[in-house]
């Protein structure tokens, strides 16, 4: 049977979508007593821009052959993606209430069994090699869809990422975008204190990538970077997104503990109130 053309969803109001992602993510980790809320809040704006504007995907045809492929390599931040999938119609919002409970499809690291999620991760350094294989397959077959991989900063300690960085540049995969969520906090301490990545921009340029450095919470610059043609023909794209871990909830911002803690009901209410106030200010 011939496939109908892909009718991409949206566009959505990405700022409103980001707020809903943050609220849903907070509800999910609170209810499941799960970790990694700081990591999810860090990428909420990036995820909102991807699902709201930049990705050519459709909830009505989530396996469409011409869709853009998005891979969350930092699988522990999955609540942000599950929330985006629910808010844009890939999955039922009610499913979010099952997060992390016995028998749920919503595993606490991103799962490919969830409609709209391409690949299960959880171990770091897997998303980019896998995405590189997808981008290479698209090139070999002359297809125009793109592959977007979102990595953390800490996971650039994994050698597999650097192997893929070499490979993608060598093969000129300008249909591959890697977003690096540079919130500068790892699991115990800062990136600088753990395993220094700087100078990151020139490092990726030296690896043969087209590199852009942006504020990872500024929707306009994210949309500009993630929508449209390759930045430079023949080069994979590295978007270094400067972010704040825990972004949007003052008492979670830049605090390592919120890699692990889950909010009490009182803290959840306070966090949701802060996001509501931001909505009113907007």
């Amino acid at each position, binding site marked *: 049977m011939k496939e109908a053309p892909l009718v991409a969803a949206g566009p959505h109001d990405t700022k409103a979508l980001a707020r809903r992602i943050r609220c849903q993510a907070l509800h999910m980790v609170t209810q499941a007593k799960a970790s990694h809320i700081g990591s999810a809040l860090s990428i909420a704006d990036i995820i909102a821009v991807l699902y709201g504007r930049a990705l050519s995907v459709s909830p009505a045809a989530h396996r469409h052959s011409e869709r853009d492929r998005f891979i969350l390599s930092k699988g522990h931040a999955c609540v942000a993606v599950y929330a985006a999938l629910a808010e844009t119609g890939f999955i039922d919002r009610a499913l979010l209430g099952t997060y992390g409970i016995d028998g749920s499809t919503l595993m606490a690291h991103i799962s490919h069994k969830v409609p709209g999620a391409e*690949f299960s991760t959880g171990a770091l350094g*897997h998303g980019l*090699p896998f995405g590189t*294989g997808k981008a290479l*397959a698209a090139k070999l077959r002359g297809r125009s869809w793109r592959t977007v991989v979102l990595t953390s900063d800490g996971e650039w300690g994994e050698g*597999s990422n650097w*192997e893929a960085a*070499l*490979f993608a540049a060598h093969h000129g995969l300008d249909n591959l975008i890697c977003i690096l969520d540079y919130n500068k906090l790892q699991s115990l301490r800062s990136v600088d204190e753990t395993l220094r990545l700087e100078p990151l921009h020139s490092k990726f340029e030296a690896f043969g990538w087209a590199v852009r450095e942006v504020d990872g919470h500024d929707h306009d610059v994210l949309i500009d970077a993630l929508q449209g043609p390759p930045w430079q023909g023949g080069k994979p794209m590295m978007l270094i997104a400067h972010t704040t871990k825990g972004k949007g909830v003052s008492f979670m911002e830049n605090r390592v503990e919120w890699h692990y803690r889950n909010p009490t009901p009182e803290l959840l209410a306070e966090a949701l109130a802060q996001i509501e106030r931001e909505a009113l200010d907007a």
Partner: protein
Amino acid sequence: MRNAFIEELVTLAEANDHVALIVGDLGYSVIEPFADRFPDRFINAGVAEQNMTGLAAGMASEGYHVFTYSIANFPTFRCAEQIRNDVDHHRLPVTVVAVGGGVAYGALGYSHHAVQDYALMRAMPNMVIAAPGDPLETRACLRWLVANPCPSYLRLGKAGEPRFHESVPDIMPGRWVSVHPGDGDAIMLSTGAALGAAIARADGRAVWSLPLWSMATKADQPAQLARHGRVTTLEDHLADGGFGSWLAESVAGTPAAARIEPITLSPEICDMVASQATLNRIGGLTL
């Protein structure tokens, strides 16, 4: 086996335009027929096995059946997590090919000995192990794998192994293949390139080979074991996590378990430098 592998893969790739080969900068004088014939489906990933396996999984998720190729432990242990998470968990058609199974690269040393690979691969729920005993079983394994794309591991010896079958045998996972008949109810059963050693030690017993096996087909073993008396298994692998252990687990706690006699390589060879023949003898596989 290497030559049968590449000849058969080229033949299969002619008929199946989704068959691709990725090598980890190895395969000199082996892989050229494929690389020359299908340049758009041949990739040298360089000395980077984790990426080789991850990108193979990515390509497989887009419709390719990808064969990754390297020596001994490089395409297996070096990238074990990519095989476990990216390939096996996602049930993607990637066939990991290791050349130099057992101690085929004898004097190159422990880094090049694949004597724990069954242990690694058989611990993965969706993995099919293809361990052919001769060049004809190699062809049979490849034909089965291309017809039944799945997470899989093809373990080859080196070059120059003799043929033990008259023609390409019919095979399926978990089912023993008769290599030659014998007297009595005691039999030899081998997997992989240990088949020659099994024949040499048969002493009138029938010899069987099991070239395709998996976690899922362990359940098919008790019925086959029940047709025979003592079953002596042979493998060029350590006992721990090996083929004989797999077979014994299938009947653990039953009287049939006592009839299984595994012959494996002794771990003392892990510290030794010697030819394949010498290591197999000292390790207890050959007499």
